[in-house]
């Protein structure tokens, strides 16, 4: 069986998906209107990565799980009050922008430095994970660049399942187009796993886990190094909400037959 692995999950924070977002242009590029006021959540795909890696770490004796988050300290603290109740982890924070209008190369450079500085960091046992795309920038490139910076050339994106086999190899399912999966076997860590939704459901809040995590979260936030993450070399010409708003025709009091007939005609292109 595999020896203990070090799972490092990179997960930032994003505005709660239910919030209305409005871009505003500032001197250094676009930002979100009232960004500091918007309630935040752990980036959804990265949150799946956290739950999946926690489940794997639990199965493999001697493993450890580090959650590395880059975001404004105050927001991170707020999000960790909830996220910290899900699974046990060591927490490392970087104090900087979690906004989407930043460059993945700059984010990756800051994360790489933090990972190299982790106590007892052993690259050969590293499972570097995160969401395959963020819900902010959505570029799907940060983990790749981070992997490159750490010298990892076994990388997987759109991961829904990882099975650590008896010989320590990893059997990995990655999403492809059209509802297909590619199955690959990697000889072992170090690897990069960009998770999609995975198969592990969101764990319920566990106050005991929350208490234990918060003992590490608060000092980690106090120690959080300030990092400057921007978008050097990018000129944002426009940042706009989609203009199209549909004039919705609301059909009430029609019989199921009438509705069905209209839908079928529409499907058939009449």
């Amino acid at each position, binding site marked *: 069986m595999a020896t203990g692995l070090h799972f490092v999950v990179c997960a930032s924070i994003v505005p709660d998906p239910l919030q209305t977002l409005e871009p505003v242009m500032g001197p250094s590029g676009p930002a979100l209107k009232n960004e500091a006021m918007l309630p935040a959540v752990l980036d959804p795909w990265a949150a799946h990565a956290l739950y999946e890696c926690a489940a794997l770490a639990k199965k493999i004796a001697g493993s450890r799980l580090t959650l590395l988050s880059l975001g404004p300290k105050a927001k991170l603290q707020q999000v960790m009050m909830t996220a910290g109740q899900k699974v046990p982890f060591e927490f490392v924070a970087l104090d900087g922008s979690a906004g989407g209008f930043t460059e993945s*190369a700059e984010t990756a450079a800051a994360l790489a430095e933090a990972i190299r500085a982790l106590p007892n960091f052993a690259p050969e046992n590293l499972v570097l994970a995160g969401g395959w795309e963020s819900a902010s920038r959505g570029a799907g490139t940060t983990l790749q660049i981070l992997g490159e910076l750490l010298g990892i050339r076994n990388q997987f994106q759109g991961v829904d399942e990882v099975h650590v086999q008896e010989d320590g190899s990893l059997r990995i399912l990655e999403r492809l187009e059209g509802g297909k999966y590619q199955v690959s076997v990697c000889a072992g860590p170090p690897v990069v796993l960009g998770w999609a*939704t995975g198969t592990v459901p969101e764990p319920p809040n566990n106050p005991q886990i929350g208490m234990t995590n918060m003992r590490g979260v608060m000092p980690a936030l106090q120690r959080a190094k300030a990092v400057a993450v921007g978008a050097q070399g990018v000129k944002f010409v426009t940042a*706009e909400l989609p203009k199209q708003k549909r004039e919705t025709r609301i059909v009430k009091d029609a019989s*199921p037959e009438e509705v069905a007939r209209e839908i079928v005609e529409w499907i058939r292109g009449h």
Partner: protein
Amino acid sequence: MTEKLLLLIPVEKDGALPKTAWETVSAVRALGQGLNAPFDVGLWGADVKHAARELASCGASRFLAVEGADFADARYATDSAAAEALARASQATVVIAPSNSRVARVLGGVSHRLQGRADNHATAVQVVDGRIQLTRWYYRQRIMVVLEREHRPWFIALESGAAAPWSGPSGDVALEPVGVSLTDADKRTRFEAIQQPPADQQTIRPDAELLFVAGAGWTKKQRDGQIHVEEADRIIREFLAKSGASLGGTKSIVDQAGEGGAVLSCMSHMNQVGQTGSTPRHPKGLATCCHGEEPHVVGWRFINERRAVNLDPNCGWAHGKADVLYVADAFEVMRKVNELLSS
């Protein structure tokens, strides 16, 4: 800035070009004309000769190739090595590839090796005042951004729908082989298989005219106070078979399996559309038992005509997110739809 373009394409295992590549050819040709810049084609795969012949008349200056059995299957180490070698051989300042899972897996990493920058999910590239402007979405299709970059090389993965597919006569091509040295470390990952449901059970159909989305309402108590999941499953499967539609689901319905709730056998996480799901491209979309909340509807950005069936006249679809909202019972409506589709 004098630009040089590279059209970068991984070739399928059977030697064919990926479907979206034809659109990317058009986009690169247009960009080349707009910039008055030449472009190369860079192909990698087990055998790229057939693909190169298909592109013979596309106007490329050179056809560069990385070939061999090691490049047959998608694998980060070998794909990134091939893409890197092709980009270096071309010395292109802008590298454009069709967006698919194979390209998306490596583009960021390769851009890093060449000290460039990468943009996945571009929906348009155009030349404005002699400069390249790229359009892509931020915050999961909620904010549309047009940007320019100083960094070169600039790697761009272009989504389908960005241009009309190119077509032209095939012919002989002088392929320039590009060498890539692989080590054992590059082969630590082994391709095992492609997993997919049997054809008659495949519910995700990217080429379908219609996206049919089922929301969690299908698995909730109905007017008689009972849950009718088996019937819901039957109605939906019948509709998919008769209409040829692709099946999508909301987060709440696909999450039910993990939460111990009633589940539709035809639904998995792969079907999920929205914030943490996919953003499919279909001409039409029909939502049923789904409230049209923003986290779901962001996945509908590229669905042109939208209709919804929901019992709530104030649901999200009513607020400018659908063209038509039918305030009706989806069970009753879809039963009738299936009858009509049979006739």
